[in-house]
């Protein structure tokens, strides 16, 4: 990293830090970038012009800048370098931006049009071709402004990279806090940048784990326990209403829910009489079909994007490794051959890669890896010792996972190519079990 880049990074840090800790934008999660790629597309995002009384309700430009920066694909040029502050295309002097080596420029406006009504508009400009690449205008209420900012980020990301953005999505995660003798668990849902965290479940001494989003983003399936000591079971919860129900009573325990891509089926693990196997349940009817029939542990099912295959963890070979079967249970084959243990796999949106937890042996512990189905090779992306629960963003560019800072669980994200890593720091308690939604 050149000194110039380091200074830029620190300057941006200052900017993002001020944004993250300002009272109006205060969220339970703050994002802290620990390592940058340093080779992103140089882009300048001018703070959006505020047309209204008082101070702007949200800093749209800062939200967009933070999104783009976190993706690792962009170098955000510091505002202190800007030679002018246009908010309209007509005000842009392209040479001002060529001078500071910006390839792209974002300008925008936030206008108050009523008591709780705002117009947001922006343009993305190509500095060298001197033309507008794209632009959008929204009319929304105050509560929708952050979501609009993420949609702007998605549009810019797509225009600049050709890949669909995944900023306007949500994440679920579990927090645990020790209070005297009790362990308090919360299942949380937040925006993809950690803002707007909302509790959807709180339990005392009943662990919560393995949240899985329905493809339409309306439901979460998760594992928890009831107070009747009946063991782990799966609940469905409607996120908007909070209504929840336990899946049909199963003889034994149920865990590891995974929604099929069409939303009609749930792959899950059932333990009965000491044997743990994969099943598929029809969500509408509760009908169960057994997929694996091995005396070993078979768990952590995950669907291929086309819904035809399931990958799962099995220790039928002695140690946990990743296997694949057709969705009807036929054609079981072992996939992972590198590493002492591999577990917790799930597909990326292309179906060509799996993200998983890998243990390479020699006391190295557990890291996050990306397994390439064609070559059978695994890239190890992290260097923790207890990293787990990896989850791809809907566009396959980022992986959210759980790691440890000392004894404390925190969430972290790494780009799928391993170049950019960031910590998402919760202010108190242990944070774990992230799951990234496919849709908003």
């Amino acid at each position, binding site marked *: 990293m050149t000194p110039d880049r380091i200074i830029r990074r620190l300057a941006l840090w200052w900017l993002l830090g001020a944004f993250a800790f300002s009272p109006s934008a205060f969220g339970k999660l703050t994002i802290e970038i620990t390592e940058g790629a340093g080779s992103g597309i140089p882009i300048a995002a001018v703070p959006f012009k505020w047309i209204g009384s008082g101070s702007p309700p949200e800093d749209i430009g800062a939200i967009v800048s933070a999104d783009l920066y976190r993706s690792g694909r962009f170098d955000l040029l510091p505002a202190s370098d800007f030679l002018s502050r246009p908010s309209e295309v007509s005000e842009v002097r392209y040479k001002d931006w060529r001078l500071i080596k910006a390839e792209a420029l974002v300008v925008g406006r936030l206008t108050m049009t009523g008591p709780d009504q705002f117009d947001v508009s922006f343009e993305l400009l190509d500095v060298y071709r001197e033309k507008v690449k794209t632009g959008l205008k929204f009319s929304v209420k105050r509560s929708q402004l952050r979501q609009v900012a993420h949609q702007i980020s998605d549009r810019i990301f797509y225009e600049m990279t050709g890949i669909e953005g995944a900023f306007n999505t949500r994440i679920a995660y579990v927090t645990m806090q020790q209070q005297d003798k009790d362990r308090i668990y919360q299942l949380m849902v937040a925006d993809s940048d950690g803002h707007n965290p*909302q509790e959807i479940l709180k339990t005392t001494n009943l662990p919560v*784990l393995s949240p899985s989003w329905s493809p339409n983003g309306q439901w979460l399936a998760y594992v928890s326990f009831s*107070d*009747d*000591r009946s063991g782990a079971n799966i609940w469905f919860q409607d996120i908007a209403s909070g*209504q929840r129900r336990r899946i049909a009573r199963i003889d034994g325990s149920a865990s590891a829910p995974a929604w099929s891509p069409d939303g009609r089926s749930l792959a899950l693990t059932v*333990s009965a009489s*000491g044997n743990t196997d994969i099943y598929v349940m029809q969500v509408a009817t509760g009908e169960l079909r057994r997929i694996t029939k091995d005396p070993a542990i078979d768990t952590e099912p995950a669907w291929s994007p086309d819904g035809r295959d399931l990958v799962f963890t099995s220790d039928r070979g002695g140690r946990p490794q990743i296997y694949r079967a057709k969705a009807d249970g036929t054609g079981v084959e072992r996939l992972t051959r590198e590493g002492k243990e591999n577990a*917790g796999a799930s597909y990326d949106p292309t179906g060509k890669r799996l993200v998983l937890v890998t243990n390479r042996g020699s006391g190295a512990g557990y890291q996050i890896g990306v397994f390439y189905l064609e070559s059978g090779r695994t890239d190890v992306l992290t260097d923790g010792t207890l990293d787990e629960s990896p989850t791809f963003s809907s566009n396959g560019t980022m992986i959210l996972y759980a790691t*440890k800072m000392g004894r404390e669980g925190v969430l972290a994200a790494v780009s799928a190519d391993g170049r950019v890593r960031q910590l998402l720091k919760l202010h108190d308690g242990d944070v774990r079990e992230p799951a990234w939604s496919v849709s908003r």
Partner: protein
Amino acid sequence: MMRRFGTIVLVLFLGVAISGCAASKKKGGSAVEVEDATIGNTTDSTASGIGTGDTTAGEIIVVEENTTDMDDPLGQRVVYFDFDSANLTPEAQRIVEAHAQYLAGNPGMAVVLEGHADERGTREYNLALGERRANAVSQIFQSLGVPADAIRTISYGEERPVSMGQDEGAWSLNRRVEILY
């Protein structure tokens, strides 16, 4: 490919990183003490929506206390396992058999076998591993005449550790089956 978490930010976390609890382990012969203090005895779930709320109060269950006579195998309610294993050590076998004989001779008693794992490996795998451990104990119980319908197995995986340390001393205390009756 591998790079270190390498900036100033990490420094902010060093305080946290070095403040992990030290593990307290007393393991020698049969003198194993497990502090039950980390697990409370009140359970409760409250589900809520982002729009509307929905509250469900829970019942109270009582977690039985460990008895304290360590010379008597019946006084020991916890057996321990090796990493990723559900095989009973000779010491564990002796304790399990003593409980099995007692329960077989006292029909009508119900027993809960609670399986646990250490934090290494994925949470879901550990849930299955705890199940396997509880089932291993259940098999011995049944082979010695405890009726299957008097036994309930439950796994908490790695979710209810008794020791919070991050080393073998702590992990060895967490890989266990608790025999509760």
